[in-house]
């Protein structure tokens, strides 16, 4: 934190202060919060902010991860390091287990991404969690631009965009009825570039796949997918070795990478600053199905 003689705050310090305030409000007012962590850069920044909010005490809530079965091992490793260092309790909600127990139905056509929704809602219900912190940012996508910081979900976990609570000043309303829960987005006002500046400033450990590396990839639907057990070449497709990095991390079968030489934070920041395509548009198969793909998934209870 750099204080200034003219009592100015840098925008990054102002964003940090706002996020810390949100974490503390939720911990003080809502009974059983949980922090949803995919191991991606946004959720790791959330862990850092939560750490700052309660230091030197430990996080007053557990960390929840939805295991799709197709997560990048590098991402799981980064998540484990963080959880160990913070001494936090980790709750894993596995899509495979949810399928085995009939919580969600894998009909062979539904993507893992959609199956995550049912798995997540089940985990929230089972854990009795009344608030779930998510790393969503309003700059990510049009439907997210209209979401509140405290996003109220009904007993089915659904989001009703036309019936959101007005959110004024920094006065958050955490009132809930039995069975309802709140999704809370402490990073609402951060942009992709802010996240990277903060990671650089705070020297935050993030998964190695964000940095340029050699990887076997398959070009499909204008995206480069990582070749793995889950993603095999189809007829006419080739596996090639390219220098790539990931801009977002999610399910391996849906998350593409981009060709890049950016192997340091400074180079990544320079690359983002001149990028001409949004991170989701570039690399997320799940947002491409329709113009309202994200809105529909959000209404059902997606992050």
């Amino acid at each position, binding site marked *: 934190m750099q204080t200034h003689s003219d009592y100015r705050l840098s925008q990054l310090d102002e964003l940090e202060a706002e996020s810390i305030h949100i974490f503390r409000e939720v911990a003080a007012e809502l009974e059983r919060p949980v922090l949803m962590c995919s191991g991606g850069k946004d959720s790791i920044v959330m862990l850092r902010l939560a750490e700052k909010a309660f230091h030197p005490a430990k996080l007053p809530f557990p960390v929840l991860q939805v295991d799709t079965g197709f997560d990048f091992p590098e991402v799981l490793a980064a998540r484990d390091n963080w959880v160990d260092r913070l001494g936090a309790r980790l709750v894993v909600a596995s899509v495979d287990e949810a399928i085995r127990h009939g919580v969600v139905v894998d009909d062979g056509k539904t993507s893992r991404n959609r199956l995550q929704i049912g798995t997540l809602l089940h985990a929230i219900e089972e854990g009795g969690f009344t608030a779930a912190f998510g790393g969503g940012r*309003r700059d990510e996508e049009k439907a997210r631009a209209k979401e509140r910081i405290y996003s109220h979900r009904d007993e089915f976990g659904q989001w009703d*965009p036309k019936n959101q609570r007005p959110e004024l000043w920094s006065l958050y309303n955490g009132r809930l009825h039995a069975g309802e829960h709140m999704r809370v987005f402490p990073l609402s006002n951060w942009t992709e570039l802010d996240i990277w500046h903060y990671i650089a400033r705070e020297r935050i450990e993030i998964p190695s796949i964000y940095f340029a590396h050699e990887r076997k990839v398959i070009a499909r639907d204008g995206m480069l997918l990582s070749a793995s057990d889950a993603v095999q070449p189809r007829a006419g497709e080739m596996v090639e070795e390219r220098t790539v990095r990931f801009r977002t991390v999610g399910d391996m079968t849906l998350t593409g990478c981009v060709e890049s030489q950016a192997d340091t934070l400074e180079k990544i920041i320079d690359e983002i600053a001149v990028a001409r395509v949004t991170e989701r548009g*570039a690399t997320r198969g799940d947002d491409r199905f329709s113009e309202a793909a994200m809105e529909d998934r959000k209404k059902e209870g997606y992050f």
Partner: protein
Amino acid sequence: MARVGADMDLLRFATAGSVDDGKSTLIGRLLLDSKSIFEDQLASVEATSASKGYDYTDLALLTDGLRSEREQGITIDVAYRYFATPKRKFIIADTPGHVQYTRNMVTGASTADLGLVLVDARHGLTEQSRRHAVLLSLLRVPHLVLAVNKMDLVDYDQAVFERIVAEFTAFASKLNIPDLLVVPISALKGDNVVARSEAMGWYEGPSLMHHLEHVHIASDRELRDVRFPVQCVIRPKSDEHHDYRGYAGQVAGGVLKPGDEVMVLPSGMTSTVAGIDLFDEQLAEAYAPMSVVVRLTDDVDVSRGDMICRTKNMPTQTQDVDAMVCWMTTAPLRAGQKLAIKHTTRTARTIVKDVQYRLDVNTLHRDLGADQLGLNEIGRVQLRVTQPLLVDAYERNRTTGSFILIDEATGGTVGAGMINTGS
């Protein structure tokens, strides 16, 4: 491209105006010209414009996020937009202009440093633009910009512009607007949006973007009265930090330093600031809006909802609150009604004692005969609270002077209040 840095400051601004005023086009223009729109977003908007048979790319499509909005061609909710130039980062609270959306406008303005009102040069000031200015003034947004749009459709005529300036200045004298700029623009053609317009050589002021980048906001911060509402108590109860006890919160006003003599309200106990912590840093001072942990030298009883301030400069402690309230739900606000009230970090119950008058936000007329407030109406209201609140007048501090009202049955946020002087 210049490196957009981490050390620049932040300007939050609220825009008001309807689709017809070209507000979405202006926002699209600001995003496009600051290179904050990405190719895939632009391509999607171009494709939609073409499929609808438009002659030009409808930049308004960039901001209409929800499907029902696109279908109806209107904006129904506050949308937050982000862009940055090498000088500043900007957060736009984009609010729809229709009368039924007063609550959205109030929401967007509550956190804004600057309000941007659009008018159509062909129509001049409308009831709607007056209402927007009144709301921004009521919410104490310190800077106001009136953008006279569609100057291209009046042949960039200076006389048209001057007429609107004169009319608005006369109206604004009745409001509380500390800083005003009126700028003639064409959002569609880009005149005076980022670069000064060649078509309007007669205009000597800054372009809109130049003003947004340079308007001085540091002095808007409240630095006189120390106000630190306590959010929670940090007690690690670990071997390493056995005796650590700190009070976490976000500074709402003033400058707090180690060594300062302070008073904890409502108990009235006094102590001295032992240290101010932010994670592993010990700070020499804290001011709004920093989130910190304050440690005191004495073991006094402090909990959530309390406020730390200086011994000779305290907020008013009162159970009777006199406020301007914006009502946000269909069932009207009436005397006798019971609600929950959240003010800083304190939540209590309240009963409405009296609706004193309803304010006509178009004419500023006070209807003293009114005994209730309907959806999107604003009026002066007296409340009695079950426990004392620690308040300042809203005009003095937007954090300790504001509150929300919550319907205890539905849990919804149904009102927003700004506390009057003398509460």
